[in-house]
């Protein structure tokens, strides 16, 4: 039976590795300026983790095979180097590996979260509420009008609770159901949660951040490829969570200008 366990474990290990090595299920193509750092980090980690995974499982399998059903004359043996060797190996190899990866991964993290949006980034506000995302553009005056929570009304489509009559900044604000951005332009995404926690996740952008009610959070990114990408909610927010999504449309600058004009005319 032990030999069967060993063989099965080895087969499971190889079978598990195949989809990774064959790149069957991989993240979608990166469309951001910072994403390659994350992707590199992920492949480095996958390589190291993969080696450790395969080595550990196969060695376990090998030892199960070798040291079961021993003959009466065989003596108990120690692993060469004993515990001391293994502990040292663990500290040195794992210690340096994990710390190195941790250290090198800080750059990707810093790019996304520790650097502020640049001064000429384009601000867009996104509001997450049960169970949809809505977006707001500041319009020609470049200013967002204030949100009045008591005026938020889904039925009358006053999503952001704007008081267009009394707040001059709100007059030219453009509210949309999909997010349009020009390619290669840094976007400063201002995040606002209406009711409970939500999250903003675009796989291709390698971008994810929770919306926290009561906190003014933001993200910044630059999209590098034209296309239509899903924005999905990844923070459990209620029964409609599975269906809470919007679309990010990355367009050329002229196309974006047309789109924004059309949206403005529909306000």
């Amino acid at each position, binding site marked *: 039976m032990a030999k069967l366990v060993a063989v099965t474990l080895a087969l499971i290990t190889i079978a598990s590795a195949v989809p990774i090595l064959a790149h069957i299920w991989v993240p979608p193509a990166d469309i951001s300026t910072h994403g390659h750092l994350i992707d590199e*980090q992920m492949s480095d980690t996958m390589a190291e983790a993969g080696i450790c995974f395969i080595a550990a499982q196969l*060695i376990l399998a090998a*030892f*199960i095979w070798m040291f079961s059903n021993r003959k009466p004359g065989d003596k108990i043996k120690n692993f060469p180097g004993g515990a001391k060797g293994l*502990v040292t190996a663990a500290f040195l190899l794992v210690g340096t590996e994990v710390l190195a990866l941790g250290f090198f991964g800080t750059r990707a993290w810093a790019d996304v979260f520790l650097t502020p949006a640049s001064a000429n980034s384009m601000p867009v506000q996104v509001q997450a509420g049960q169970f949809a995302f809505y977006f707001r553009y500041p319009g020609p005056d470049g200013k967002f009008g204030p949100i009045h*929570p008591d005026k*938020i009304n889904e039925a009358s489509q006053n999503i952001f609770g704007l008081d267009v009559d009394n707040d001059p900044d709100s007059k030219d604000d453009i509210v949309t159901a999909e997010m349009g951005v020009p390619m290669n332009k840094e976007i400063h995404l201002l995040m606002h949660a209406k009711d409970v926690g939500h999250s903003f996740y675009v796989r291709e952008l390698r971008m994810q951040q929770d919306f926290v009610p009561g906190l003014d959070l933001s993200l910044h990114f630059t999209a590098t490829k034209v296309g239509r990408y899903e924005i999905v909610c990844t*923070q459990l927010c209620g029964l409609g969570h599975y269906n809470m999504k919007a679309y990010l449309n990355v367009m050329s600058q002229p196309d974006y200008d047309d789109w924004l004009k059309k949206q403005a005319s529909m306000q």
Partner: protein
Amino acid sequence: MHDVSAHLAHHTPPQGFIRKYIFSVDHKVIGKQYYGLGLFAVVIGMVLSWLMRIHLVWPNFAIPGLKWISSAGAPGGIITPEYYLQLMTMHGTLMVFFVLTNVPFAGFGNYFLPIQIGADDMAFPRFNMMSFWVTFVGFCVLFAAFFVGDGPPLSGWTAYAPLSAIPGTGPGQAMGQTLWAISIATFCIGQLLGSLNFITTTLDFRTKGMTLMRMPLCTWAWFITSCIGLLAFAVLLPACILLILDRVAGTSFFIPSNLVVSDQLVNHSGGSPLLWQHLFWFFGHPEVYIAILPAVGIVSHILVNSYRRPLLSHKAVIYCLMAIGFLSFMVWGHHMFVSGMNPFSALVFSFPTLVITIPFTILTLIWIGSLYGSNLQINSASLFALGFISMLVTGGISGFFLAQPSIDIYLHGTYFVVGHFHMVMGVAAIFGMFAGTYFWASKMFGRMMNETLGKIHFWGTFVGTYCIFMPFHYLGLVGNVRRYSAFVDDYLAPLIPVHKFISIAALFTGAVQLIFLYNLTYSRFKGAPAPVNPWNGTSLEWTVPSPPPWDNFGGRHPVVYHDPYQYGIEGSSGDYVMQDSPEQIQTVREDKDLI
């Protein structure tokens, strides 16, 4: 006046059915009660997982009987989106609290810790009894949530505010969520009473010769787990109290201003949703080590027995357990990398999270390294113990990805996370429970479990759980979001065939568990009578009858002479020496460990 033993009243055996089996102060009965409660909870939890997996891939399949349990949640037997989340919440809550904390820790620990240290009971037998019944009340309150109002909460076992703090945010978020919070708060109290007993008994009630370093590794694991539990549950309790106050008393600990739910302004202000997350995860991370450490200890204990030789370093394992216990309190923020907390703190939390890889690696290397040159014996217990090593390697390695904030940007909230924690908690820890059951059932019930059925159970579960949970990681890599009740959009729909494979594997593996349940139940009554030491073990539980008498050692006081793992010794009459035997021992091992 002298220090009379506190247990004068305890020195007569209990009389009557109620005192012997219901309200018993005997740690062995309490251990079995915890085990039984955990078994009941795991069956419900597993059925919930079947319902979830069926709904994900066959959403229009009418599940027979479900509409009688909830006509609103499953009209005509078809699960609604909210009911999926409600089932998911109960699945997580039952499994993490009432299975993974109950069985390996409170169940086996209560039963075997006193025996393994040579005591005749826990330090505070009545508190011990209370700890079980308080836990039981907590379970009943939670179970009641299925049948009240609009059902159980849907906010997940993590119950993030404001979703969990405002009753109007969804079905089940009113009465169901309140019952959940009361249940968990009650559970905390039960666990605190239990930890009190474990710690005091370990420190004060060891028999003659039983120094701390001479305790078996599972005893060490239970001891360290109880220290973690004492500090962790003492933080979850305040969190639940504050949540209950927000829900029913109008306070705003977690609920910020200007929230609009269903077009109505919420009448709370100023609170911090992140505060809930910090409090919850300060408990929540140590909790997952509470779930895994007892299994680590039990598996180590069983592996030594199966290898017929001691581990390469007894002390290294103990120090690793301590290191894990200590580090477990420093890493909670890794659940919150993208939560909106200060991004600099993500780097701070990431560091100890990566460092905790080291003690786990040392443990794995010692387990595998000690297998080298050993005399491996195969039985159901050792199969699950070996399987545990494999599962912990897999689960631990996937954690390595998530520990890095930059990678977590992409993988957070995806099935990768679900695969990781199921591998370590839903598989590895469960394997530890199975290993412990096959190893100790004979001692607990006086009858041997059927080995053939045990091996079939192992094969089905080992292959089955890999088939279920390995694909979760692939789904995560593609960006399959978690906690979705359906995959309806263009991006996720092509992944449904993978989900179908998983669901079928889950149903198959679930069916295999019936073999275990049958084996456990049948052998309880009809199994072969168990000898005192069926596995040729060396620790003190193998010196008492199967099952032990009410005072464990029948009035005698065991004396131990050396560490508990004197296996593989040349020159002794067998290949092992009992811990309470003064027979020739290895002179080198005793004081100078290999480290």
